[in-house]
């Protein structure tokens, strides 16, 4: 394998998260939630974001309450602000000081372009939150209606990130076993959270070898769309426009990373957030709540419960254990619901008996908590095999791109409900382990070969870059 030169591009040229200087009142609630202390400014005056430090997690966007009054004559007109933010003209919701760049217009244009074969994937966290934007209770599970809405919008293929999450488990589970059994670099960290990855790159680049070399499910799905998906669909990769719907604003940064083009094209052309998808659905006049439920498209759309729990803290760990246990011991894990890795913000540690091995794992939720673990590793005191790190408070369901809850008192409930329904969805699915997904098995048998094999390595694994 030749040395790939990974180019460094930061957020400075194209910031994803910005603070509108006309609207910010300097209350500094954003400062309290920023996990990397990237927001600065005196109290009571507009704050600014240090784009070199920002990991684009969007927690500031979620908490900001400094809105633009429609009756304020001293600020730029709403139309101007909406254009600056890349919002569809039909959007009616209020604008706040902290905001993320918008890509809804690009997706709308692609859907209207008949020369493009559009493929879409949705993250696990979307299906337990998008209905909130249509008035359904917090955390409502609407995967079937979500698929229908995407089809009505005009996507040629409605695939799913959860399928790719199952693939990620195959690769990452195998990688973990390899590191454990061949004295590889441990502890191994998950690498699916792009804000976490950027954090390691800019703060602890010396610890980059600890990151799993696996791409995130988003990026695995993207590269598979334009290779395997092109084959299956009988289309040229050049015609495919690959869209990802994410609960995360940092995924916009991840898809634009220069090295994410192993398909020969941009593996993911554009990322929109849950909120932006809801805006597109409303813009198209689709009555989401009354839609009939449909299935995802075959080949890259079926998923196991293990794939869907990626959306909550501890989910990647639990999914990896369900498969890793069986890969190592050749026996099914006795208890599928691994409750001791589930929980909320903070650091959770556990020991799991996997045959003769006692696997020591940790789950970190909330990027601020990761620093503690990183310092332990540097001091040689981190006695773990595998650590899952998620930037956002309770994992992706609490991501910066999720529906923005208005009242602080509803925030906790939104996290709790979205999390609970993620596990309900998992429990009710016929497939609960990634390696038992027949479409994943078919992908390996007919296209990829083996996990960690030559093709997997080329398409599904990546390299990281020091940003220090």
């Amino acid at each position: 394998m030749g040395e790939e030169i990974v180019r460094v591009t930061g957020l400075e040229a194209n910031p994803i998260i910005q603070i509108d200087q006309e609207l910010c009142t300097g209350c500094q609630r954003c400062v309290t939630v920023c996990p990397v202390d990237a927001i600065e400014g005196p109290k009571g005056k507009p704050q600014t974001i240090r784009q070199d430090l920002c990991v684009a997690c969007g927690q500031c966007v979620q908490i900001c309450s400094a809105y633009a009054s429609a009756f304020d004559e001293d600020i730029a007109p709403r139309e101007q602000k909406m254009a600056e933010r890349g919002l569809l003209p039909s959007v009616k919701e209020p604008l706040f000081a902290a905001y993320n760049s918008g890509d809804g217009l690009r997706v709308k244009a692609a859907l209207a372009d008949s020369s493009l074969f559009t493929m879409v994937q949705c993250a696990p966290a979307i299906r337990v939150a998008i209905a909130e934007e249509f008035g359904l209770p917090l955390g409502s599970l609407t995967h079937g209606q979500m698929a229908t809405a995407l089809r009505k919008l005009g996507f040629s293929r409605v695939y799913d990130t959860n399928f790719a999450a199952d693939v990620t488990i195959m690769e990452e589970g195998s990688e973990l076993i390899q590191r454990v059994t061949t004295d590889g670099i441990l502890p191994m960290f998950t690498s699916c959270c792009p804000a976490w990855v950027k954090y390691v790159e800019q703060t602890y680049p010396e610890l980059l070898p600890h990151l799993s070399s696996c791409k995130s499910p988003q990026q695995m799905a993207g590269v598979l769309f334009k290779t395997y998906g092109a084959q299956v669909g009988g289309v040229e990769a050049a015609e495919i426009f690959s869209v990802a719907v994410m609960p995360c604003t940092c995924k916009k940064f991840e898809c634009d990373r220069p090295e994410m083009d192993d398909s020969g094209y941009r593996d993911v052309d554009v990322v929109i957030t849950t909120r932006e998808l809801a805006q597109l659905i409303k813009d198209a006049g689709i009555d989401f709540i009354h839609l009939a439920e449909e299935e995802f498209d075959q080949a890259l759309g079926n998923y196991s419960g293990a794939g869907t729990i990626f959306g909550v803290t501890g989910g990647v760990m639990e999914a990896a254990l369900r498969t890793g246990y069986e890969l190592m011991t050749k026996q099914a894990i006795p208890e599928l619901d691994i409750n001791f890795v589930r929980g909320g913000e903070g650091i959770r540690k556990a020991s799991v008996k996997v045959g003769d091995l006692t696997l020591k794992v940790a789950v970190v939720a909330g990027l601020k908590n990761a620093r503690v673990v990183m310092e332990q590793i540097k001091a040689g005191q981190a006695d773990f095999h595998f650590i899952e790190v998620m930037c956002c408070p309770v994992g992706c369901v609490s991501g910066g791109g999720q529906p923005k809850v208005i009242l602080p008192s509803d925030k906790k409930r939104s996290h709790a409900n979205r999390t609970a329904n993620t596990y309900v969805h998992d429990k009710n699915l016929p497939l609960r382990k990634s390696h038992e997904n027949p479409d994943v098995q078919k992908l390996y048998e007919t296209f990829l070969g083996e996990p960690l094999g030559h093709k997997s390595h080329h398409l599904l694994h990546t390299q990281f870059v020091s940003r220090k």
Partner: protein
Amino acid sequence: MSTNLNKFIMADPNKCIGCKVCEVACSVAHADKEAITVGMIDTPLITRLYLVQTASVTMPIQCHHCEDAPCAQVCPVGAITQTRDRIIIAEKDCIGCKTCLMACPFGAIDFVPIYENGEAAIQNGLQVEIEDRMLEKQMVVASKCDLCAGYDGGPACVMACPEKALEMIVPKAQKKKRNIDAAMNLLESVKRYNG
């Protein structure tokens, strides 16, 4: 003869950080459509308390539900009345003359459109001439804090404030508390002098 004084909400300028969650909560509580997420809000936010931010002070200002409310005294159509324990504006009767806005020493009254089912209410007769064309004119009426009459669970702003800077003031209880604090302070001084 009632000696009950009207309650009112007041912010503590020492605690207020100027975040405007109170304004957002107020708007949403009074909107005709429920909204838990921002995406569900499809009309402009209309608040009944107003954040003031200067070099020396940061706090929202809102109606004091005055016992001898000047707004009620001056309203030429009698749209403002004492209804049970609060001063209420009857939107339907308001003609938008703005005399109440001028009379209120706190600036607690604003003039705003009315949104129903996502649309602004339009006037029947009065139109606006813009560049030789006659266009609809929105209805505009007086609006102020109504202590969330008709909103379950009590005033939205008080509940929403992340710094607990807003308080529903019960005037008589406040007065009594101050009397007691003053007496306690005096007790210490008097002890020292009189032995």
